[in-house]
């Protein structure tokens, strides 16, 4: 197998990490919606944590995407 093909396969495999990002982000906002539905007055307190959680969950997925780009374009 030559390097170019191996790179493509490697990049594709690395992108599987984004599944985790999707699940995580869905989880975070589902909890936010449940929490605000139960107690609308708490929205202002809970929302900053929801955004922080979203960013951290997305970051983990993007670590995988960064590896994919690294494989494709740097090596």
């Amino acid at each position: 197998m030559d390097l170019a093909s191996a790179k493509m396969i490697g990049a594709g495999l690395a992108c599987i990490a984004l599944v985790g990002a999707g699940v995580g982000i869905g989880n975070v906002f589902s909890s936010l919606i449940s929490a605000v539905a139960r107690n609308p007055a708490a929205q202002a307190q809970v929302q900053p944590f929801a955004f922080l959680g979203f960013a951290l969950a997305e970051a983990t997925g993007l670590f995988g995407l960064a590896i994919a780009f690294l494989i494709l374009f740097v090596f």
Partner: protein
Amino acid sequence: MALELHPLEQFKVEPLIPLHIGGLDVSYTNASLFMTIAVVLITALLVLGTKRGALVPGRWQSVAEMSYEFVADMVDTNAGHGAEPYFPFVFTLFMFVLFSNFLGLIPYSFTVTSQIIVTFALAAAVFIGVTIIGFIKHGAHFLRLFVPEGVPMVLLLLLVPIEILSYFIRPFTLSIRLFANMLAGHTMLAIFGGFAASVGLLAILPVALDVAILALEVLVAALQAYVFAILTCLYLRDALHLH
């Protein structure tokens, strides 16, 4: 027919004014230019915006005051009391990352925070600063940070190395989070833009997708600045209050 895509060309750092001091290349690059623009814009907003100092603020003064209050509130809530001296640092970090991220969204500009060395420099400054603050405030007792309370001795043998590892990984996750978000966003924009250039009449689809992704990138730009600042506050709280 291969698709001639060069999505990573936009991240190339080009020297605008070549300068060499000793053996070091200290050229003024396009990255330096956009950092200068960001600093000038921030200073203009804050200095010119609050120059009139009206009791009922006008538009620019409102924006300057709101950004100040937002960060002051964030430091107060998340870093606890005793963190007031560090507010200027967090404010500078937040405004610089925010303005750099937003400047990068302008077409044909350069995103400073999409360079790993820039984000790593910021994250290393935060990590080293917070560690030094912790040691100055608590002395050797700072190492208690790695030993959570009420844990049996057997678990501690496993837990302490994990805590130490997760502490030292902080500068890397902090920098890679911002870098990867900016890199991924701009690369996606470039890739779909490339599709639009080569498809003919169907180009409306990649362009529409690009518009949606650009909207997402605006959100991500603001959010990543907020996350960088709030994590700095949380690490500061860990160092100042050890839990």
